[in-house]
């Protein structure tokens, strides 16, 4: 396939969907390639097993090299925006300062990014979860925080109508929102772009990328068949692990020494607490509140009230047999708070000859201290709310996979420049989670969208 498209976008998640829309709206003929399948409100899997297996890489989760950390990322049209919680937060000055220091890129500050945030926010339905939607898990979180004098805030979510009053349980939307309420790129930017002529090809996994004198050559498998696509330019939006794998396999490490370095993931630690009365943490808006305490931000962690479906809960429980089953029988009586660590110790992504990814990432040093400080706060909150027993799960996991193609001025320490081009490759762009030069300690999705909007303007300017 060649000559048909002005731009190919690899990966259809938070970044790919947004970029596809703005480029198509700007008059470019675009092709959006996605390794996973296309699902929708009528076809999303209805149980966690099928949801994890079909919609996530690795058949559910991928492990760090030491198997101490598990990573989750989606593999479907719409990418991780389909399975995430759609909590949409702007960065604060602390996050931007960290990015400035790490990248030296001038526009990475609140003021210059504000129009890009405003542009994407203006197209989505975003609202704070109201107190009327607090389930008992959220009420216990608020009660515990207030007793300990910790500040909290409502979560800000991309949704249109979750029908909480009518009894809808949002935990089911971890396998895709069957009400089309969650503002994933699948039901927003990709849908709008398709109406303008965007071509979408699910089931196409790009395996190699080559820079040619007249553009790029991509090859990969589509429904089991090898295919080649040529285009004048490509936007890489396959996420931190997807972009790193593709470029490492395609031999770019020789030119881009920092490729795969600087991998962050906001390691998360879950604590469950048992209460005498049922909590029913899985009911209604199962995530509603977060910590909003400057002391926590300073200490390098944040807290969110959250819960887990039974499969995840059973996995997180350290043990098996009758003890596990007895714990599971208390499912309705469990509350949960998660610590998300603002990690500072970078991990590394590599790929072996067969293309298997290896993520070297541990919760160690300063990050382990941050995690412990968070766990102490969680224990205080849960005890203040009247918890009978508390279980801190030993396994940590990463949902916010970031870095590997850090943005920056210095070619030796970064991969992408301030115009979102790979250093030395003016036809290859990236603006997704892979370009994060450091962990922000804040939900990344909205900033990925804002960066993607800015990148789309750069691409349009180049054409």
């Amino acid at each position, binding site marked *: 396939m060649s000559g048909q498209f002005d731009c190919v976008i690899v990966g259809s998640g938070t970044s790919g969907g947004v970029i596809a829309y703005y480029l198509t709206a700007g008059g470019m003929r675009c092709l959006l390639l996605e390794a996973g399948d296309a699902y929708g409100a009528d076809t999303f899997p209805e149980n966690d*097993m099928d949801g994890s297996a079909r919609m996530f890489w690795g058949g*559910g989760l991928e492990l760090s090299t030491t198997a101490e950390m598990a990573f989750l990322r989606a593999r479907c049209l719409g990418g991780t925006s389909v399975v995430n919680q759609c909590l949409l937060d702007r960065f604060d000055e602390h996050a931007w300062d960290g990015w400035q220091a790490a990248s030296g890129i001038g526009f990475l500050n609140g003021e210059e990014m504000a129009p890009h945030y405003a542009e994407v926010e203006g197209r989505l339905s975003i609202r704070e979860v109201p107190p009327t939607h607090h389930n008992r898990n959220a009420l216990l979180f608020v009660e515990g925080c207030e007793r300990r004098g910790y500040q909290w805030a409502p979560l800000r979510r991309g949704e249109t109508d979750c029908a909480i009053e009518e009894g809808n349980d949002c935990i089911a939307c971890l396998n895709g929102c069957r009400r089309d309420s969650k503002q994933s790129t699948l039901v927003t930017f990709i849908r709008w772009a398709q109406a303008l002529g965007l071509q979408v090809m699910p089931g196409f996994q790009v395996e190699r990328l080559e820079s040619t004198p007249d553009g790029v050559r991509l090859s990969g498998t589509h429904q089991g068949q090898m295919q080649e696509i040529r285009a004048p330019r490509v936007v890489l939006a396959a996420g931190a692990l997807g972009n790193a794998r593709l470029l490492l396999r395609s031999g770019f490490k020789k030119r881009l020494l920092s490729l795969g370095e600087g991998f962050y993931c906001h390691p998360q630690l879950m604590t469950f607490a048992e209460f005498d009365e049922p909590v029913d943490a*899985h009911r209604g808006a199962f995530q509603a509140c977060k910590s909003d305490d400057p002391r926590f931000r300073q200490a390098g962690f944040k807290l969110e009230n959250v819960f887990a479906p039974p499969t995840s809960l059973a996995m997180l429980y350290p043990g098996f047999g009758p003890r596990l089953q007895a714990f599971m029988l208390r499912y309705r009586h469990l509350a949960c708070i998660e610590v998300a660590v603002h990690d500072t110790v970078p991990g590394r992504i590599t790929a072996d000859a067969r293309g298997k990814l290896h993520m070297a990432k541990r919760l160690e040093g300063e990050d382990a201290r941050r995690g412990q400080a968070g766990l102490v706060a969680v224990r205080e909150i849960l005890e203040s709310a009247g918890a009978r027993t508390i279980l801190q799960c030993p396994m940590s996991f990463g949902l916010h996979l970031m870095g590997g193609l850090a943005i920056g001025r210095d070619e030796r320490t970064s991969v992408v420049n301030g115009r979102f081009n790979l250093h030395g490759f003016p036809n290859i762009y990236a603006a997704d989670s892979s370009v994060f030069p450091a962990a922000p300690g804040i939900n990344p999705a909205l900033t990925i969208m804002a960066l993607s909007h800015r990148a789309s303007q750069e691409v349009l300017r180049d054409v």
Partner: protein
Amino acid sequence: MSEILTPREVRALERVGDVVVPACGPLPAFSATGCVRYVDDLLRYMPPGDVADIRLLLRILSVKPTAGIRFIMSLAGAGRRWPGPIGAALRMIEIGLKGLVVSLYYSGKTAPGYTGTVPTDAIGYRPRVIPRA
């Protein structure tokens, strides 16, 4: 029953399942639910290398008595605290086997004609999705 596992491997998975999630109060044993028949729905989406590792493990476990399976699961669980490659291998075994078992068991899927309690019902997990009008 499975197009990916041999009957011997399926039987081993059922025995591992009964060790990981045995009958307990209203909760049925793994093997009683018949959920093992859906194992291909999971394995089909896993990387081939991981499937090969799980099959090897199941073949090894198929010749062990139940006490041996329990010992290996305990050892794998203890691996959480071990450093180095041995700890990593043990954690992978624990996550691989336990992950397979609890995904099947707590999927809520049971064999056709199963009349016992569904595990998700027993723990009170019945999320409601209100269709859009």
